[in-house]
């Protein structure tokens, strides 16, 4: 067990998992917010476009999107995300395309999380805001959005946890994150329960605080109704 810890850099693998999670989460949040705005807008075309994106992406396996990003977009369409001159061009491309795939996939779930936040706001809140004479912008800013964001905290936490676990899928295109290292250790040594539990523990350590934090935040910020 200890020789495995010495021989393989497990912390570096989990650092890659954290990097994948961090950058994909930012990407997913940006795309997902745009999609959510489109999906709640009063313009039919934008609503349909948003719904189309969500339905397509949500029903496609993440594995397929990750493979397609590298095999299809990187190699067939030849869109490179890293300069070919750099020594780590191959790895960098895999990492960056994995991040793009993860962001694209989870954006659909971020969009749905934000939308479910809007759905927690009772209609009476908007009506009350109008009837005391607030303009559209004011009622959005002062009444609806604050409640909607609070309602979206818990589902957003779920998406972030799922994203952390889903970074393992990046291993199928050769990104050296935690699950890829575990696979390598198994292939070189033997499939031992101890190593599996070590990696499982790593993911528990990564996701547990996120879950606890988001649960306590959503409880503390919950709108009392």
């Amino acid at each position: 067990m200890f020789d495995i810890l010495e021989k393989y850099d497990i912390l570096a693998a989990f650092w890659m998992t954290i990097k994948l999670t961090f950058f994909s989460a930012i990407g997913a949040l940006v795309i997902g917010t745009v999609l959510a705005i489109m999906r709640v807008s009063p313009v039919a075309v934008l609503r349909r476009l948003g719904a189309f994106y969500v339905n397509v992406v949500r029903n496609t396996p993440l594995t397929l999107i990750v493979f397609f990003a590298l095999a299809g977009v990187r190699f067939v369409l030849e869109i490179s995300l890293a300069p070919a001159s750099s020594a780590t061009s191959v790895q960098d491309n895999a990492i960056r395309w994995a991040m793009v795939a993860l962001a694209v996939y989870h954006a659909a779930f971020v969009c749905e999380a934000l939308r479910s936040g809007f759905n927690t706001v009772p209609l009476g809140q908007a009506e009350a805001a109008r009837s005391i004479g607030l303009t559209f912008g004011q009622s959005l800013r002062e009444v609806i959005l604050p409640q909607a964001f609070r309602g979206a905290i818990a589902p957003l936490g779920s998406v972030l946890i799922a994203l952390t676990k889903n970074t393992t899928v990046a291993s199928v295109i050769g990104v050296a994150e935690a699950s890829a290292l575990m696979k390598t250790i198994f292939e070189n040594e033997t499939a031992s329960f101890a190593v599996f539990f070590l990696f499982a523990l790593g993911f528990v350590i990564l996701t547990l605080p996120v879950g606890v934090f988001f649960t306590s935040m959503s409880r503390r910020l919950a709108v009392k109704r």
Partner: protein
Amino acid sequence: MSAHNVLFDAPGPRARRRHAILTAFGFVLLAATFAAVVWKFNAQGQLTGALWQPLIDPEVWTAYVVPGLINTIKAAAVSIMAAMVFGILFGMGRLSHNRTIRWVSGVIVEFFRAVPVLLMMYFLFQLFAFNNIFVASLNSFMAVVIALTLYNGSVIAELVRSGVYGLPKGQSEAGLSIGLTPSQTLRSIQLPQALTAMLPALVSQVVVILKDSALGTAITYPELLQSMRDMGTAYATVIPAYVLAAVVFIAINFGLTVLASRIERRLNRRGRGPRKTGPATGVAGPGTADAPNDGLGGRGVHTGDAASQAR
């Protein structure tokens, strides 16, 4: 209540003009995206008929698509049934009045919910291969099925638990007052109602299982994605192969999603749907106790919220 109603009044003349501009913008966005894709595909020679021809070749369907789809459905069907059994068993375990059973089921459910499915698949596959537990050809199938069962079973266990918590308190009180024991009440009164109410969420979980079965490609299980990748290599049509795989997955999963929402509407009409008494306060993830403590209100994120489907 839709978000649309909350946010917007009936548009006046100025708003209508603004909407017309935004509509035009939407169409331009659509056209620009489409044009960019076509331009790039064309520039890389991906729009030639010869590349897409294999998709209507009967041999491609009999040799790649159908066998792959059968393997995907086989793994998904076995997993969903095993996951139901696992989920109901451990869901009841978590609701048990025996503290040890409750604690053990809690630990097991939380553990398998926290561990990535792919991590489990890698481990199980290597474990089976090293110890010759199954016939060599069965190793990858069993690894896929067991990993999917353990993860989704744990999610279903949580569904069962939040489903039972979501029932009106009067149900268990009535059961106890006619002289049933607590476990009889759980089995014959609470569980049947909870299972009916969580039916839509269960169907959504089938979508998750179908999607996750594609992870089997990482451990050489010949499911749909794997066989389509093989086809892409064999016929040198990478992008059409992925597109076809995606279309098949989307068609099946979209059908299931529609089914789930139809069941939900039907249950709501009959007044048996999941009770929606308050805003979601739960975070679907390991170690998060999202069950409401008053035994009444609260739908956790588990009762069919779209967000919990991420995996």
